[in-house]
């Protein structure tokens, strides 16, 4: 069964204790899991290169409208504040989940935030995240 895109949510934990919130005005979430590989070729491999996976680079891209106010979701001003953090303050916990399905969770940092505004369309915001450490994938769904 196909899954409607709006059922997928990327959330960031904010406050203490952590409350997981989506981004206000969100229109798209992109998840990328890219394997880090190492190639090896010995004479015993008889010319066939061997490839080993030594880890993954996990990244997210969240895209949405610039929303300045929201009572339940993370606004644009908060996101800019997050993007200006450094050190331990720049590490955020996240959840990436679909309703009733397994959830990916872990820690991440913001690697890029860009805001786009022209003269005629709605202003949009794009935030790139990179997962740090090993994410977990389980069915502890809270969405």
């Amino acid at each position, binding site marked *: 069964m196909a899954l409607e895109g709006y059922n997928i949510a990327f959330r960031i934990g904010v406050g203490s204790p952590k409350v997981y919130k989506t981004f206000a005005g969100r229109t798209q979430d992109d998840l990328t899991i890219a394997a880090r590989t190492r190639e090896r070729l010995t004479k015993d491999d008889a010319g066939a290169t061997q490839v080993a996976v030594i880890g993954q680079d996990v990244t997210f891209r969240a895209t949405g*409208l610039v929303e300045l106010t929201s009572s339940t979701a993370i606004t644009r001003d908060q996101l800019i504040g997050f993007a200006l953090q450094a050190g331990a303050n720049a590490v955020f916990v996240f959840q990436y989940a679909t309703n009733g399905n397994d959830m990916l969770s872990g820690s991440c940092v913001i690697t890029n935030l860009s805001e786009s505004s022209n003269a005629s369309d709605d202003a949009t915001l794009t935030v790139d995240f990179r997962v740090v450490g090993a994410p977990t994938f389980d069915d502890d769904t809270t969405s």
Partner: protein
Amino acid sequence: MTEYLHEKLVDTLRAHGVNPALSEDEIDRYPYVTFELPVEYRYTKDGPYKIVGNLTIRSVSDDIDEAEDLRAGIMAAIAGGFGDPSEAEDPAEEVEVVEQEATEEEIVHDYDEFVFSARITDVRKDCMDGVWVIELDYILNQYE
């Protein structure tokens, strides 16, 4: 989100003395105003947040002055009803705006809870067989 762009447009024009008809209506008396307003919904993951209408509205008359008066009335009406009047390209100061009845202020419309805006994108003027047609293109927005 229910679409109110059509209702809002017609009410706005009528309040300024312009009575529009849909393009498919057969009008046999000059001058007249027709329009087309296809709409599309814009979504976030939380649902529709805006309705965009691509309005083409035209004043038609065998008298250029009548067609221009209607054109000016349309622009004044939309500038006043859909956003900041100062944004209008032609405020049409010479056009007499029909005064609204005092009781009309008390009328509550279903669309009052929404925010509307308008942006003009093109004006075209043409004459064929002695009939003047002035077409205006607008982008109309309805926000929650």
